[in-house]
């Protein structure tokens, strides 16, 4: 294969999979704490909008990313408050969050649909990025791509190497027992939900700050839902998120290249691939587990916790 084509494909995959890594790793932590937040799509679109607006007005990528992070966190706090303090059904509340997020961003972003911004560029380190083949392959990605990988590592480290991570996992598996030995279930879950919101916001911002320099109210196009599927695919194991996301990135890039090669299939059918792939992957996971119950599912996932004492 042509060397530059290979590098282009790798870069394409990194660009397509990074938003999924962000959103999925955030949701993974949330689900590990025993909470199912179906609002990922809504939090992503809010992040995409806020990142875009701040980049448009300030031109500062740092502020833009930060705004997206805060935006995702802010909207996720609605979900956190409702599910943790008012004990609402998590499925219904998550759906409401998605619908609200889509409506809110369509409304708040109506003045920005014609604007364009300066994209966040890939890094270039003198010497290192210039090494043939290895340079572009290791040292020339977008800074947010590295951040996504770092976040996966940090979530893994937190969950499996820290005391708080252990507590969070135990809350996800048995909130009553965790409560009985004195852990604050609601506080841990609240924090986890906010973290999930921040990551989803970041994933959304990647779409409008790195992928395309424009804003559109349907630009997440189901990526939040695909991220939810990735968490299941990853069996709630952080590093498997990367594997799953790269798989999706690969399919997306394949589809774009196929359109470029003038293959005689309508573009619409090719665009269906990522969605169909999600289904196929979820099915293949179940076949691999051979209908055994998935042991890694947090036991309390989606269950309401209310302490009587």
């Amino acid at each position, binding site marked *: 294969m042509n060397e530059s084509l290979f590098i282009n494909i790798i870069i394409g995959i990194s660009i397509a999979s990074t938003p999924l890594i962000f959103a999925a790793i955030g949701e993974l932590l949330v689900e590990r704490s025993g909470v199912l937040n179906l609002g990922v799509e809504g939090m992503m679109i809010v992040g995409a909008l806020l990142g875009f607006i701040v980049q448009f007005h300030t031109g500062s990528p740092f502020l833009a990313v930060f705004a997206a992070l805060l935006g995702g966190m802010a909207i996720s706090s609605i979900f956190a408050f409702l599910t943790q303090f*008012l004990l609402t059904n998590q499925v219904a509340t998550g759906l*409401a969050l998605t*619908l*609200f997020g889509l409506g809110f961003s*369509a409304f708040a972003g109506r003045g920005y649909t014609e604007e364009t911004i300066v994209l966040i560029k890939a890094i270039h380190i003198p010497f290192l990025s210039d090494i043939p083949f290895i340079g572009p392959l290791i040292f020339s990605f977008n800074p947010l791509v590295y951040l996504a990988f770092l976040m996966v590592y940090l979530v893994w480290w937190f969950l499996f190497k820290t005391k708080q991570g252990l507590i969070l996992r135990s809350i996800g598996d048995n909130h009553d027992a965790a409560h009985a030995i004195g852990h604050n279930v609601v506080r841990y879950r609240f924090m986890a939900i906010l973290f999930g919101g921040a990551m989803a916001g970041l994933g959304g911002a990647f779409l409008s700050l790195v992928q395309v320099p424009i804003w559109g109210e349907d630009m997440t196009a189901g990526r939040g839902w695909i991220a939810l*599927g990735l968490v299941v695919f990853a069996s709630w194991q952080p590093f498997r998120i990367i594997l799953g996301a790269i798989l999706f990135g690969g399919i997306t890039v394949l589809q774009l290249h196929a359109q470029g090669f003038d293959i005689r299939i309508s573009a*619409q059918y090719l665009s*269906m691939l990522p969605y169909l792939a999600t*289904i196929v992957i*979820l099915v293949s996971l179940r076949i691999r587990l051979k209908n055994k119950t998935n042991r890694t599912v947090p036991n309390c996932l989606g269950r309401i916790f209310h302490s009587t004492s």
Partner: protein
Amino acid sequence: MIKLIPRVENSKAMIFLSPILALTLTALSALVIFIFILEDIKVSSVFFTLFVGPLTDSYYFSELLVKAAPLMIIGLGLSIGFRAGIWNIGAEGQYVIGGIAGGAVGLFFYDVEGFWLLPLMALAAIIGGMFYASIAAFLRIRYQVNEILVTLMLTYVAVLFLSAMLQGPLRNPAGFNFPESRIFHDSAMLPIIWEGTRLHIGFIIAIILSLVAWFGIKKHMFGMQIKITGSAPRAAKFAGFNDNKTVLYSLLISGGLAGLAGFFEASGPAGQLTPGLPQFYGFTAIIVAFLARLHPIGILFSSLLIALSYVGGEEVQIEYNLPSSITQIFQGMLLFYFLACDILIKYKVVLNKSKN
């Protein structure tokens, strides 16, 4: 400190009061939002146009009923699954497939007269929607794959499929390459029941369906089965209820109804297949079902309420040039408040002057 004390019995009063409280809170929030965003327009007049306007003008009122019909039909189907804890979130996709299937039959018999055509189209739409939902049912039963994700992914696929159909086999041959079908001929169009408006027979069918669903859930064994499967899955198992059957039937019912709604939209207000067929009804119907507490008669009212917000949103868009997406914000907010207020049913809120 505010504390929640579980009630011994669910509060009957709160079952009725909490939706009213949620509505009031939504209206107040809307007021605050308007005060912030409106500069030279009077807040009260926008408020009036949005929430009362559709009731005072006969055209807007008929549009309200036109929009309530698909919401009612889809909401009914969804509520059946939701009762059993089966989350068909992709009704929008089944709606689109139903619209395509019904529309394709109508286009196949283009210019053929006959009273049988509409029932045939409806049947095709129902089967189309059922088939589409059955994919999720099969995957859940055979492989335990989550139906939320499958139905949602298939919604994106359905919308792309519609687009492919409209650029391919179903495109109007004389349409200058626009991605639209031919306009249906008269025997493929739903009869209008209110002269001079777009209100079609689908609205009556929607009301009949609500009554049938109400009766069915009350009297039929299946109604009992889904109720118990949802509220006490273990008890349902001991009673010998078949879990898989519940999954299959509730997805088939909700898929078939969503398909029917898609056909009503295509053969009613739209009159042809266009890329504008998906109108978010499939998602909004989720709100409709929840606001009604999944009760068929409640859905009759909640679909009218949500339709009011749709039409009101369109009115303020035309009259004050405000974006219609404001409707979606209010709908989302209403659901938030509604879910939040429900805590008053199961819990007593107590203010205790605690010593810590």
